[in-house]
């Protein structure tokens, strides 16, 4: 199983790097769909989660449905609606973003290594935590480094995936306590934001949801 979960971790990191380097919105949405599927599959293939209860299996399927189908579907609709294909003039360029992504991996590995002093983790969890922290940091980065509303939501979604992974990694005994499961409510926020983009575009005449246009409110 370790072999398979490691493959999933590397696929997640691959999707993170791809999303940092891509500028076509449709591609980004597809990458996020892929990432959503991989991320929601990961708990299936982790050793400690082998004794699965019916409840957790149902929950994992729900996660798969939400992260892999529902949210990407919504985003697909939003991208169709706003009729823009490219992320123009990112605040931080694509090459720099990719480079930042690589640095995140290093930092995540360093942090996870430091954490080992306090808790001795199974090797699999070490890899999972590295993946999780990388995804989390890259999501935050994407949120800040892009101008389009939809790309910011994608950044937020990635951060949310990262948090879900951190939760999976730390929740060894919490399966009776149900904490990680509530991460699904963050997906709800993502849906609300995407809905906002779609609805707003119907209601008004802006043909472009660019957060740079949303810059009238500021202090001098």
């Amino acid at each position, binding site marked *: 199983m370790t072999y398979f979960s490691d493959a999933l971790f590397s696929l997640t990191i691959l999707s993170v790097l791809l999303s940092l380097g891509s500028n076509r919105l449709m591609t980004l949405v597809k990458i996020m769909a892929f990432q959503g599927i991989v991320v929601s599959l990961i708990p299936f293939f982790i050793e400690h989660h082998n004794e699965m209860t019916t409840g957790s299996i149902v929950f994992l399927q729900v996660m798969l449905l939400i992260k892999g189908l529902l949210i990407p579907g919504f985003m697909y609709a939003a991208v169709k609606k706003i009729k823009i294909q490219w992320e123009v003039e990112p605040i931080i360029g694509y090459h720099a973003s990719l480079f930042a992504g690589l640095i995140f991996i290093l930092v995540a590995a360093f942090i996870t290594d430091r954490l080992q002093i*306090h808790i001795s983790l199974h090797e699999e969890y070490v890899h999972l935590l590295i993946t999780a922290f990388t995804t989390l940091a890259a999501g935050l980065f994407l949120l800040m480094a892009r101008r389009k509303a939809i790309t910011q939501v994608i950044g937020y979604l990635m951060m949310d995936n990262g*948090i879900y992974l951190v939760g999976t990694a730390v929740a060894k005994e919490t399966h009776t306590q149900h904490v990680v499961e509530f991460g699904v409510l963050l997906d709800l926020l993502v849906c609300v934001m995407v809905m906002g983009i779609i609805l707003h575009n119907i209601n008004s005449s802006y043909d472009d949801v660019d957060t740079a246009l*949303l810059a009238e409110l500021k202090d001098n």
Partner: protein
Amino acid sequence: MLEFTTLIPVFAGIIAMFLPVRLGRVVLVVTALLHLQMTILGWMGKLTPSLPGYFAVTPEGILILLVTSFIFLCISVYAVSYMSETEITSEPIYIGCTLFFLGSMSMVALADHLVVLWIAIEATTLMSAPLIFLHRSKTALEATWKYVLICSVGLALALLGCFFIVLSMDIGQIHVPITFSSLSSVATKLDPVWLKAGFIFIVIGYGTKMGLAPMHTWLPDAHSESPSPASALLSGALLNCAFLGVYRGHQLLFQAGLGDYSSNLLIGFGLFSMLIAAVFIYNQTDYKRMLAYSSIENMGIIAFGVGVGGLATYGAMLHLIHHSLLKSSLFLSSGNILLGYGSKLIARTGNMARLMPKTFVAFFAGFVGISGFPPFGIFISKLLIILGAFQMGRHFSISVFIFAIIVIFAGAARLVMKMSFGKYEKDITVDENLMRVVPLYALLLASIILSVWMPDSLYQTILDAISTVGGGV
């Protein structure tokens, strides 16, 4: 069944969405009255939560619930008149969402479970976003977008904080329900490193919602773009609820013997918020933004007071009550001013003392109160915080504190003088009306009364609330 403070507003909200506007307004005020009654019953101990694993009556929670309930009543009376004066197409949505908002805030005040608290705070975000977008203008859209996005990031980090606290339980080999009340009894056995990490994320997460700098950037936009009753609610009630999240984390750390660490964090964030507010108030051009920055300042003061401990914590709790009363009154007066002058810019207002005398008295009195002059309660609370900080030997931070409040007073006084006595040639568009003046005075009066006469049960509740973080008189 104290959970009815959540359930009744939610049901009323659903009903109000489908009712005609006039009937909806009645539902709003009636629900506010019912909510206040239930809260008072809860305060007296007659009503208790029926789901003990998730909800509990805590002194700080019930205090915040009472404040919320009282100002909600005043605001809803005001809102009825305000809404009929402004042309808002989606008033049923406004009424429904304020009621949902009230329900979610009651849930925050009563939540005992770590995750229930988090869900409730997320619910406040979702329920208040439509209120900010009510005017449907481009700037309102921008404010709502910033609000939802920034607060969602905060919430995500707060959830991470919750994970870390649960992890600290696992490492400490503790098996209790994840409620604050049961965690506090085993706090010393929790793993300190992960507890600290969890607290940082909780402070950043809920601090975003509370408006602590540097995570405050959504706050001035949201407060200035939403209609005035909603701004009053955001500032007077929502910020307290978010503060409750931070406070619960601080309690947990204090009981785990890590009080110094969390205190220093709170003091740092508090002072930084005050300084940021001072910088932005000084040259402000928009009076609602001025009030919003003042909220950031006051949240900073509360965080500072709680962090210092001792007498200052008592001051901070008093400050929380009086800030809610005065600031919601100020935001409601700003609604009258906006109706009268049709602009949020200070340069386009003036001569309020003659044109809108009743609003002027309320606005000016509110300003005097929020700046810390007697007979309003903030005078006492600021004094207690300063004395407490001296007692604790925090000389450097208290000098920063005093510097910030002086700069803020100087900056705001100039602007308020301009609005009150400056030149203004034209006439105002909408006159004052009784329903839009009485709530302002009711809130101010409540602050005056509480500063000269403190009921014993209130005093005792505050003492109970602060005893868990090392506060006391």
